[in-house]
């Protein structure tokens, strides 16, 4: 079942790996010129953006160092959201999309319990996303080496692990809503709204005291506040992400187990 499910995901996974990989090649290679003329890119980068935009991009205090550039252009906003979109789309293929298409009907009549069916299709999602993360990690590291970014592999690995955990979290959100409703739309809506609000809460929202507490509900807080590119693996934060993901997956099992399929 896991292998068959992976075959269903395959094209989406390959496409997203290629897309994210291309993004990495493009942006990391630009660092070569940033590094050559830091006096142009440092102040220029700061002055170009209005303050609100700077907040959204994580502050832009450090654009010209290797970790600073990588954080700003890759790990701050674009890579997590690209990976999140990939996770959301593939997660919908676990249950909601086959249910809407009608292909889930035969699968639920196999001699496999609902919970086990869901967990196998979920396992394929985890494996698939891990593969996308692994390939894009290697691309990022190879490019960082090529332009002499001077960021150790361990730090890139730590940041990339966060991307995977964040993607898994939101992918699990999508799948859980899909498992409970049997439709793609609600899962994408919940995931999209949570992601955007969560991101704003830990960036622009941090300057508004009344909203500061919201960051505790934001997966991005656990993703980024430990600054893994500078400080290495934020074990506690990542465990929170992983734990929340596991709870969501369990919720999905319970919701799917008691539901009419395909009505």
């Amino acid at each position, binding site marked *: *079942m896991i292998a*068959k499910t992976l*075959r*269903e995901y395959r*094209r989406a996974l390959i496409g997203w790996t290629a897309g994210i990989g291309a993004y990495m090649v493009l942006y990391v290679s630009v660092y070569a010129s940033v590094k050559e003329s830091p006096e142009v890119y440092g102040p220029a980068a700061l002055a170009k953006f209005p303050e609100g935009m700077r907040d959204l991009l994580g502050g832009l205090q450090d654009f010209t160092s290797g970790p600073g550039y990588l954080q700003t252009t890759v790990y701050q906003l674009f890579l997590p959201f690209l990976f999140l979109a990939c996770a959301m789309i593939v997660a919908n293929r676990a249950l909601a999309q*086959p249910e809407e*298409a*009608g*292909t889930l*009907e*035969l699968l*639920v*009549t*196999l*001699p*496999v*319990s*609902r919970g086990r069916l869901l967990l196998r299709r979920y396992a394929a999602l985890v494996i698939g996303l891990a593969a996308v993360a692994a390939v894009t990690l290697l691309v990022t590291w190879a490019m960082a080496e090529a332009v002499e970014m001077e960021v150790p592999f361990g730090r890139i690995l730590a940041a990339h692990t966060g991307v995977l955990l964040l993607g898994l979290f939101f992918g699990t959100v999508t799948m859980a809503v899909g498992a409970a409703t049997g439709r793609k739309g609600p899962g994408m809506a919940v995931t999209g709204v949570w992601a955007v609000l969560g991101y704003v809460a830990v960036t622009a929202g941090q300057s508004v005291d009344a909203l500061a507490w919201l960051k505790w509900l934001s997966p991005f807080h656990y993703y980024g506040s430990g600054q893994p590119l500078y400080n290495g693996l934020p074990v506690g934060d990542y465990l929170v992400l992983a734990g929340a993901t596991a709870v969501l997956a369990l919720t999905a099992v319970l919701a799917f187990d*008691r*539901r*009419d*399929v*395909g*009505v």
Partner: protein
Amino acid sequence: MTGMTAVVRAEGLTKYYGRRRGLEDLDLEIRPGEIFGYLGPNGAGKTTTIRLVLDVIRPTRGQVHVLGAPSRDPSVRARIGYLPGELALEGREKAGDYPRFLGKARGGVPPGRIEALAERLDADLGVPMGRLSKGNRQKVGLIQAFMHEPELLILDEPTSGLDPLMQQEFLAMVREVRASGRTVLMSSHVLAEVEDVSDRVGIVRAGRLVAVEDVSALREKAVRRVELHFDAPVPPEAFHGLPGVRDLRVEGASVRGTVDGRPDALIKAAAKFTVVHLASAPPDLEEIFLTYYSDEGRHDDRQDAP
């Protein structure tokens, strides 16, 4: 019950979709080794019943046991073959890979069986699933339902999309299943499709089972037109007052009439003379079937308002 466990036993099985009634208080037993035709117009509750039996949907009330186990028990489904009413097949995988995958998940298929069924049904398994024609899709559905020789076959509108030749082949496959002592539940909205193979038919309308009949009993109730020709004129009084014979007309050497149920009396009366030609229209079961609908329908509509 005479010691034999029912293959499917529904008790008070009821399903509401919100406020809409899907099925109301169904009591049904399907016996081992029989072919049960489940008949009704579209939307009557056939697919709802089938999906309850397979635990795709859950009953509002009541319960259903399949092969001795509650429908919630997943292990029992390895012994069932299921053809959904609207079979969806998607993707770029070859059509042959899908039955193989399903077969593995159900605990294995004898080697060569899928290919043999494909040949028999003239199905092309080399085409990507998403590009199968409607007929080929139905054939893949039949292959995956029959391939593991399940004890119970549940077929929802199995003949839709099949050309007449394939329908005959399919009916032969169903008869072979019965000959090997296994059980078939098949639905249809057309009696003619199932009357030739079914041992019993259940008629469902507006969510209620309105009748369960032996097909042979149904045939006995059927009206048929009969025409006899003799080598010489026959005396009309020889055919007067025959039980079950109506509208009898004797004209010289020919006799025409309508027979309710068994034609036995008429045949015995005719046997005293030399019969040169006998014609009998097949019994119109469809007509009886429709009588059930209209009678129960009027009765049922009154109860429809919640």
